[in-house]
């Protein structure tokens, strides 16, 4: 009996040791690949930044208006953005290579599936980035316009516009990825339709007199910037 237990334990542990003997070199290989990838990506980022600086991309982006657009979206300058993009693309590539180095068939199968998704993911990522830029710009423009027009709850209005923009962007991203497309489209249509219907009922039918009176009172009590600013000059 004791012999059988010891034998089972010995086999189990020797299996683990054998497994570790196989995994540790692969793990070390993966770590070296990832570390080397990080170094190479960081080096590429630095070189990209230098080259773009040397090419005076900052001035070019100022001249073309790209710099102003990035500032409006609270994003870093074009040369830093490009350098960061190069870094992350390279680093992600090395990460995937590192996963390959582990040699686990499950992870490799997963990576292959992800590889098939890459074109669609890239498109979705581009939509997401462009959508974030647009949503940020729109939020700030609405906020500034609402504040300077003396509207009540400017932040709330800008936040609502941002949320609406991001909802549309999210629906576009999910549609691009192609995950459960009918569900996404149906959910989007239901949410937007419900919001619009609620607003229509609330403002247009049920509480129109109340809303009008409240708005009249609120707006009348507020100072609005003059329609003619010549007295300020």
């Amino acid at each position: 009996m004791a012999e059988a237990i010891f034998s089972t334990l010995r086999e189990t542990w020797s299996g683990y040791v054998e497994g570790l003997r196989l995994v540790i070199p692969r793990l070390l290989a993966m770590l070296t690949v990832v570390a080397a990838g990080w170094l190479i990506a960081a080096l590429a980022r630095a070189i990209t930044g230098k080259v773009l600086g040397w090419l005076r991309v900052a001035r070019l982006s100022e001249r073309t208006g790209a710099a102003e657009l990035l500032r409006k979206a609270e994003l870093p300058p074009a040369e830093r953005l490009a350098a960061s993009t190069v870094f992350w693309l390279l680093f992600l590539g090395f990460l995937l290579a590192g996963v390959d180095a582990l040699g686990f068939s499950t992870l490799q199968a997963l990576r292959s599936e992800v590889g098939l998704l890459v074109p669609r993911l890239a498109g979705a990522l581009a939509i997401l980035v462009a959508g974030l830029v647009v949503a940020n710009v729109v939020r700030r423009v609405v906020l500034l316009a609402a504040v300077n027009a003396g509207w009540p709850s400017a932040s709330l209005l800008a936040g609502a516009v941002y949320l609406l923009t991001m909802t549309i962007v999210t629906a576009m991203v999910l549609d691009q990825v192609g995950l459960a497309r009918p569900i996404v489209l149906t959910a989007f249509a239901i949410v937007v339709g419900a919001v619009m219907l609620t607003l229509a009922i609330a403002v247009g039918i049920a509480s129109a007199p109340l809303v009008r009176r409240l708005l009249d009172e609120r707006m009348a009590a507020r100072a609005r910037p003059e329609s003619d600013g010549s007295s300020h000059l």
Partner: protein
Amino acid sequence: MSTILSDELLSELMAVGQLDVLVGLPTLNHADSVGPVVRAAHVAFNRELARERTALLNMDGGSTDGTPDIVRNASIVDRETLLASQSLRTRHRISAPYHGVPGKAAALRAVFAAADLLQARAVVVLDPEIASVTPESVAALARPALAGDADFVSPAYARHPLDGPLVTQVVRPLFRAAYGLALAEPLSGEFGCSGRFAARCLEQPTWESEDLRLAIDLWISGMATGDGLRVAEAALGPRRLTPRQRPAVAALVPQVLDALFTCLRLQETGWAAGSRAIALARSASPPPPPDPPASVDVAGYATLFREGLAALGGMLERALRPATLEALRAAAAVDGPLDVHDELWAAVMLELAAAHRHATISRDHLVRAAVPLYLGRVAWFAAELAGLEPRDADERLEALCLHFERSRGDLVALWTAPLR
């Protein structure tokens, strides 16, 4: 020169010959207001400047309302003028379109080029939107340059410190802090200058800059601080604008701030390097400030300041130093009185200017985010001035300008500091 002046205009100018005074009048759809300005200039030619060789040059930006026709046909046939006029010279009146991108900068460049070509001793530029122009004011702008006493003559209007707060609270103090020149109206569209000043302006490469279109009036005033130039101020009495729809304050403040900060950027090599105070000769003692204009809506502006700061505080964090933003938030405390005092206001303006220079956030967003801050300052200043005599109010404004002047070191440090 030939690229600035068209062949047709060149031949017209050649027919004029040498000049003593050239009056430039840039216009664009000013049919409603240009007539009296042209008449004032011509009465000045025939009466105040009767012994000088004079010409009026209207540079039009492509008006569609018949402005050039009005300039060409404006008559001066009122009895008083005819009796008082002692015309000794031929009076020339030229109206022509200008070359290049539409805008006042291109028009002024053409006027300066014409003055240079005609070797004019003095140039006067008039603003068709200023309805209070008189023959005397035209002559007052021309005489110091004609006499060789000044290279640049800026107008000084009789205005209460609350009349035109964008000038009194923003443009005048910051311009003075940067350039060391205490002009009352650095933003004015009318001025006088010598032929030498016009020639020096013409030499600048800045004319090719897109940014100059925004900041041309201030840029001209800034040019007056150049080495070896003498500056004078002519008291012109009260100023009255022609009644026409102008941008609302929410649009006007960003325009003026953008122009001011852009001008500082265009001329940074000049003002940021020097530290001298520039002498200013006043051709006549400034008139006492008249009564304040229509009262400022102190409570309304204060509300807009508080709500604007609450909403835009996050955006301003990248433009203002934490201490300044904290002080603004304390000033906006709902349970206390509004307190945007001189020291805080100077810090705000200096930091906004530096943020615009370094583009720490979008320049467009920056100047728009400054509107509530400006309204808060105007509300505080109006409350400060309540009950003060006009003379005391003027002294209070001078104290603000002196405070800005003392902050010049901070401005230069912020301006030249590496990007945060």
